[in-house]
């Protein structure tokens, strides 16, 4: 589970992007109704499987020490 969670450096990068005017737009709330929200959650759930597997299996040197 810990290897799936974002690494500290990834969170720091995210925080910097969230507070830069050029990139802050990618952090706006998505408010397209409950159906769209459920669809996003379902998509994220499905996409998480291969992406999480990749994060577990990839070499530690490419994952900020994870």
């Amino acid at each position: 589970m810990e290897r799936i969670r974002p690494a500290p450096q990834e969170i720091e990068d995210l925080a910097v992007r969230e507070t830069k005017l050029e990139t802050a737009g990618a952090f706006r709330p998505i408010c397209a109704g409950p159906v769209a929200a459920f669809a996003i959650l379902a998509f994220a759930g499905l996409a998480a499987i291969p992406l999480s597997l990749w994060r577990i299996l990839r070499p530690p040197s490419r994952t900020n020490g994870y």
Partner: protein
Amino acid sequence: MVIGSGISGASAAHRLVELGAETRLLDIGYDDGALRQRIPDEPFDQLRSTDSGQADYFIGRNKEGVPRKGVVVGAQLTPPRQFIHKDAAKLFPIAGSGFHPLMATSAGGLGAGWGAASFVFSPRELESAGLPAGAMAGCYERAAELLGISGDRASPVSKWCWPSAANLQPPLEIDDNAANILRRWKNAGRVHAGSIPMAVLTRDRRERRANPYFDMDFYGDSRRSVFRPRYVIEELRKSVHFHYAAGRAVFRLHSQPGQPPRALAVHVDTGAVETFTANKIVLCANALNSGRIVLNSLDGLAARRTTVLCNPYTYFPTINLGMLGRPAAGRRHSLAQFGGVLLDSAQDGIDGVFQMYSYRSLLLFKLVKEMPLPPQLGLLVARALVTSMAIFGIFFRDRMSESKCMELVEGGTPERPGLRFTYNPPETEKAWRRACESEFRAALLRSRCVPIGKVDPGPAGSIHYAGTIPFDNPVNPGVRTLPDGTIDGLPNVYSGDSASWNTLPAKGLSFTLAANAIRVAELVARAH
């Protein structure tokens, strides 16, 4: 002389000056006015899309607002509030692990970051804490006048949260998320919810202004609408009867019958030890630090050990299904939107008090950090959920036990004595807390708020401390406050904060700290 400038110290000093006493206040008094001034007086949504320097206050110049791994004291403070515990680890060393209190060194103490929820203790709660209900009634009214409280007397929880005649400004508006939950909330059984009183102005009052609903209340002190003890100190400094000595960390008191008491303080910049003498001393240094000073001052103690109280605290991040995918208006404040009580099984007393917060102004990266998802997906989910996030924090009452102690330890210097905490609630208390959490979780589900986790920030996580110099001390009877308000063994030294309390009700203690400090100031003035 008052020691400490938090809610207790500021309230005691204000009442003493009001009663005509020459008053000196000793304080460490760190502040960060520069970063506070740096925050434009504009709404959160606008700052997010226009201010190119927003990283300074949202995540900090050194990224101190980006949470690290493990237990980090002060992690809940936003960068502009980090000054609250500047140098605390150096000035107040803590030995051991497991209890990580937030110790304030700031002007205004922990009140500089107070969430402003204001509660009046019932007569039974006051008596259980050892405080006189009769005398406290008038002091609550004075405290409401000093702090400026808004609230709704017609709220379904008013009879529990505000059993007082004290004046209230009209209540704060609540945001879309909270309104959506309250529309469905059924007040029945043990859990009741509604608008709670807040130390936030909704009408202009002297130099302070009504809350502008900018959702920046976790960062700045916009228009001074949320009460901060600093405002009282600034007003007092205009009086010739008030003397403010900042940069002083008091570590020991000396007091003998028939002699004026003395406070020994170390200057935080130079390290020089100074002595301050007064007719009376009111100790308002925060229950933990007040206890530390007293343990370091009393001679002849068999053990430098005493009791400690701290409200257990649990929070539930939830998804409000009624707001899922829906937009929320930008006009909102950041503090508790509503709150309520968890009654005991006899529905006679209060086991827990909760508050509900919307999440928006704390930025998404902190949500992503908690998700067991790769960051790109976590961000997508956070964007879809953020308007429906509702955080419920619940505080539980605390009672004394021989397994909840703090002691002075070897290793620190005489000016900086260390503390070690033991906080192990008995098994019966742990089981009671689990049962309360289950009851509360069921109430959340009934209102269609689905908990996605349960977080226990640890035994010191509530930042509500008390009971280190209690009226009745079962751990060390030599460390106690006497019925006249003075500390046993330290004549003319009064306990002005929550250190003297025998129990800690579930209700947030801050407003009662102000009322109690006013009561103690009146005792001091009367005795003088």
